[in-house]
């Protein structure tokens, strides 16, 4: 039995696993204590639950529990990592490096630091969406303190070469922060193997609750210090004050534990489902373009441009499927996806793109339904598309003088 709308937007957020909810429920009611209350059982049991969760999350990424700082989510984690390190190490240098395809939580944090006098290099990406390691090396100066490159991209799902970036950072003596929100729990991620100094995590992308995230902050080799963004009671080793979201943290921990235990089999299952989606779409339609590397990619991600069909009209035609598009018409800014633009494939392919994010609760039956629907809607919209007609008549669209508006 299919349930509509079919949810293929797991990069935006994921449904909560019922096992996670079950773990959380007592901490809303009978175990309501403040984890910072040291004088009674309510506080102790809350603290104990938080420490179990801290270990569950640390175990997922090969860290020590003491290196996990809880936050409200990945946006806060990105802000804390980048601003915290930039301010803490300002005397050492005022230069940061990131990439043009980073999440807005990283880009806009860097933009704010630029206004405050920091210098930021925004590395371009290659056609496959990955950064060029030689360009990274070349960008590092004696004033560079931090490089922030995401582990997996939220739109095109490509996996950046974080092992190599970590090695370069270690060699050059600079810090390496990675927004690992989309990668953790989906593909193996180990802070020591990749030489990561800081990593942003969030619960709601791994079938946990919204409103809770974490920042991994390395304590040894080297010990990373951060200037806190929020002042107060000195929680979380002074890096993030504020009463802990105990039920959220318990859920985050449970979600991390499930990912650790099931990642290998789940990744294979979701990857096979994504490949089925891709293969069946190619059987039914021509002129499809996959955005980003197919080799270095999250198992659940497929980002495809359906040439000559505009993304928002496509979403309207498949309104019983929840996906997202890089089309300008679907964004508040009326600009097409900056990530897809950065690949250099031309804005028209960005306008025609759909991001599929498959996850734990999707099925082959759903994939087959979505393929059938897309083949029919894309075919109909192409019948209606002047561009498709022109191309079939042998017109080179790049040679047409368009009246840009």
């Amino acid at each position, binding site marked *: 039995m299919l349930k509509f709308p079919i949810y293929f937007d797991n990069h935006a957020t994921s449904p909560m696993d019922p096992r996670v909810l079950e773990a959380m429920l007592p901490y809303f009611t009978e175990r309501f204590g403040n984890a910072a209350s040291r004088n009674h059982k309510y506080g102790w049991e809350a603290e104990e639950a938080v420490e179990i969760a801290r270990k569950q999350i640390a175990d997922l990424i090969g860290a020590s529990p003491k290196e996990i700082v809880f936050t409200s989510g990945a946006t806060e984690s990105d802000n804390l990592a980048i601003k915290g390190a930039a301010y803490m190490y300002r005397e050492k240098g005022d230069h940061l490096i990131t990439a043009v395809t980073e999440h807005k939580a990283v880009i806009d944090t860097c933009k704010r630091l630029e206004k405050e006098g920091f210098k930021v290099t925004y590395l371009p990406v290659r056609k496959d969406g990955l950064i060029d390691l030689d360009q990274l090396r070349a960008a590092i100066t004696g004033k560079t303190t931090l490089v922030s490159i995401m582990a997996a991209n939220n739109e095109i799902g490509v996996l950046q070469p974080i092992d190599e970036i970590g090695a370069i950072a270690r060699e050059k003596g600079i810090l390496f922060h990675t927004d690992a929100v989309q990668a953790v729990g989906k593909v193996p991620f180990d802070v020591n193997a990749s030489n990561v100094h800081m990593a942003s995590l969030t619960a709601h992308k791994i079938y946990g609750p919204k409103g809770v995230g974490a920042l991994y902050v390395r304590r040894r080799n080297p010990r990373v210090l951060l200037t806190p963004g929020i002042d107060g009671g000195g929680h979380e080793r002074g890096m993030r004050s504020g009463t802990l979201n105990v039920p959220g943290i318990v859920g985050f921990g449970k979600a991390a534990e499930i990912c650790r235990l099931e990642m290998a089999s789940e990744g294979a299952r979701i990857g096979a489902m994504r490949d089925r989606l891709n293969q069946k779409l190619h059987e039914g339609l021509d002129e499809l373009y996959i955005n980003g590397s197919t080799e270095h990619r999250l198992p659940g991600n497929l980002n495809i441009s359906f040439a*000559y*069909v*505009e*993304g*928002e*009209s496509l979403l*309207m*035609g498949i309104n019983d499927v929840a996906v997202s598009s890089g*089309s*300008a*018409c679907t964004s508040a800014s*009326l600009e*097409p996806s900056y990530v897809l633009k950065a690949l250099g494939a*031309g*804005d*028209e392919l960005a*306008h025609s793109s759909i991001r599929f994010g498959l996850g734990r609760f999707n099925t082959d039956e759903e994939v087959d339904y979505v393929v059938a629907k897309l083949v029919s809607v894309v075919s109909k919209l192409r*019948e*209606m*598309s*002047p*561009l*498709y*007609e022109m191309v079939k008549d042998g017109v080179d*669209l790049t040679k047409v003088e*368009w*009246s*840009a*508006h």
Partner: protein
Amino acid sequence: MAYSDKVVDHFNNPRNVGSLPKQDPTVGTGLVGAPECGDVMKLQVRVNPDTGVIDEAKFKTFGCGSAIASSSLATEWLKGKTVDQALAIKNTDIVAELALPPVKIHCSVLAEDAIKAAIADYKQKQEAGQAS
């Protein structure tokens, strides 16, 4: 974003999708917009040269649902109108009929531009035909 019922109706049942022979002297073709902007409309009219009335109108549109609906509506309105009446169609009429939100007004502007471009093409062909 929620679409008006009329936009949804035109999107699901577009009127007059198709193409007319471009070289026909009684056919005017307008092609407006640009792929990198996410909107391209092709609108064609066939005019009865004796009466000056538009007998047939066809469109093809690459664009969002509102762009498709705007051009579909435009072709409906064009049929039976004289060339001069067609030029009097304003984008604001389309906005009102389809209840387009502010962010979609450019779709109606593009439809008006497409009508004007198609009629200009027809007129040019007629003048060229008379001159030869």
